[in-house]
């Protein structure tokens, strides 16, 4: 499976999980809050920060212009700031003009919302920009995902991460269906990510253990502010904790090789057993089964070698409850 490159980071294979802190609209149009959110994302250890820059009048029939979004200039400043703080960035947009604008601002990838999975002309337009695409697939059947991928790949763009996601805000545990990630990976041979809309930090952490290569999660300064997606947004401390746990999981997955660890080889002796004498065995006696027992520590002869002990004669007197060693036989 090919890896997808975003900025200077790689996604897929054994690469670290690419973690996106989604600010969404939780800034409520306040530039200072948005700036603070960028800082929080950087401090929490995210790889990228994203904003939703959806112009309502371009999205919905009969809608008036959005009031809670940032201006284009403010967004540009936020991108600049994110870059200064070492974060990659993009904005979630839904029309061609916006795509052009954010491409001009140097975004390193696009995020497509689930609602635009069937917006094939838009997908083609994005694909042709040549940037990696994170494609959300919420509320879709396999055929819709297949068609969307076909359009993107036919436009010459193979740098796709397929997002498993759920559109219920918030998603109950039974509906998370993490196993869909396996299906998407097997069917399309592309890296799979998880865009989480549950409450709390557990599902993304589990998703990473299950093979998700990208995690996206909403965050907010304070759920009490009741921003747009506040129910499914993490507060700064929780975001940091989620990322910390994801990095831990990556370390815990470790190696598939089944062998004792270096420091285990010493301690394991005390957990294993040795062949010991159950009764006193006078010198010259031929040793039989019933004269023996198995006790810790395992510093003597190990139980599998019983056959080399039974039938031999004791060279010396062996006391009761003594670990048998080869020189005694």
């Amino acid at each position, binding site marked *: 499976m090919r890896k997808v490159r975003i900025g200077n980071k790689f996604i897929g294979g054994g690469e670290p999980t690419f973690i996106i802190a989604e600010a969404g609209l939780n800034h409520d149009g306040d530039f200072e809050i948005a700036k603070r959110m960028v800082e929080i994302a950087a401090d929490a250890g995210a790889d990228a920060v994203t904003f939703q820059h959806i112009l309502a009048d371009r999205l919905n029939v009969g809608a008036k212009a959005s009031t809670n979004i940032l201006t284009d200039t403010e967004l540009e400043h936020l991108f600049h700031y994110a870059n200064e703080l070492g974060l990659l960035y993009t904005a979630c947009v839904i029309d061609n003009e916006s795509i052009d604008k954010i491409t001009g601002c140097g975004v390193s990838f696009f995020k497509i919302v689930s609602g635009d999975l069937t917006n094939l002309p838009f997908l083609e337009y994005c694909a042709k920009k040549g940037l990696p695409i994170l494609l959300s697939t919420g509320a879709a059947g396999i055929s819709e995902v*297949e068609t969307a991928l*076909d359009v993107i790949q036919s436009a010459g763009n193979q740098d796709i991460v397929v997002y498993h996601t759920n559109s219920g805000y918030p998603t109950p545990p039974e509906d998370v269906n993490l196993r869909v990630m396996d299906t998407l990976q*097997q*069917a*399309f*041979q592309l890296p799979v990510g998880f865009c989480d809309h549950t409450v709390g930090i557990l599902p993304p952490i589990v998703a990473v253990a299950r093979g998700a290569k990208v995690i996206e999660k909403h965050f907010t300064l304070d759920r009490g502010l009741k921003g747009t997606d506040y129910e499914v947004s993490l507060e700064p401390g929780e975001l940091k904790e989620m990322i910390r746990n994801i990095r831990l999981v990556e370390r815990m997955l470790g190696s*598939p*090789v*089944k*062998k004792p660890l270096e420091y285990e080889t010493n301690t394991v002796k005390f957990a294993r057993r040795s062949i010991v004498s159950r009764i006193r065995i006078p010198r010259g006696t031929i040793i039989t089964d019933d004269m023996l027992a198995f006790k810790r520590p395992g510093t003597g002869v190990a139980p599998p070698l019983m056959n080399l002990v039974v039938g031999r004669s004791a060279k010396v007197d062996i006391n009761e409850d003594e670990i048998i060693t080869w020189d005694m036989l």
Partner: protein
Amino acid sequence: MKIGNKIIGEGKPCFIVAEAGINHNGDVNLAKELIKAAKDAGADAVKFQTFKAKSFLSKKSPQFELFQTLELGENHWAELASVASELGIPFFSTVTDEESVDLLDKLGVPAFKIASGDLTHLPLLRYVAGKGKPIILSTGMGTLGEIEEALNAIYSSANKQVALLHCVSAYPANPEEMNLRAINTLREVFQLPVGLSDHTIGSTIPVAAMALGTVIIEKHFTLDKNLAGPDQKLSLSPAEFKQMVANIRAMEKALGNGIKKPTESELEIRKIARRSIVARIRIPRGTIITEDMVRFARPGNGIEPRFAELVVGRRAKVGIEEGQAILWDVI
């Protein structure tokens, strides 16, 4: 793992080894013919077995005399290495003692093979590992524990270039006992390239093993199965070996990339094999089309059956002949 200039591992072409073994019957000229035949058949390498009977057999063994006649001398091995080099086919051999290891190492073999019987010959494994070259380790008759111990012995000299061969040491082996799925287990447990050393009759099993991602196939071959020798009957003739190589290469291609969509050649047939909505009877202009007026027939260059609901209930803009495919512009 790399043998010569060929990389062995997942995603790489299968490394096919023509095992001449002892099918030369002690005749170095026959051995040379075998090398030529291996090259012609398209094998990636030719392999022999290097031994001195008195070194690995007890004099009392019933096989002692036979193996003595099958011995080749040091100068013979040099000749064979040279012939292989001229023909441009990698040459290596099963080693059985320190002498054979040194001999072959001096001749510049790109790898060493260890026979299944020597899986537990830890001193030999350590000696071979010390040469720092790739090792192909057969695991016939072995348990996971024995393989683990063998690998530990090899790794103790910092040589990690090992490939395992799943093998069933029966001569010949029955397909029923092959347990090809053990290839997956070996790969999973030991995280090494895994191949198959096959002793069944014919090439069905090695070709089938390709479906499990087997990266090395080792198969006995001979110039003529009617020659004398204990391994002749489970060896392939040059023509059979050539066919096996072709089948293995075909299988590699047949596995594909797993993405389910029509192939190029299918796209043409798709048009013919699918169905169109077709008029069952003549439909005069102006008629409202009902279900019983249409049927579904090949070829599929009209409207797909799943759009029937968009056709039924519409009016025919022009007269539609019986058997004519209904297209959007006539309704």
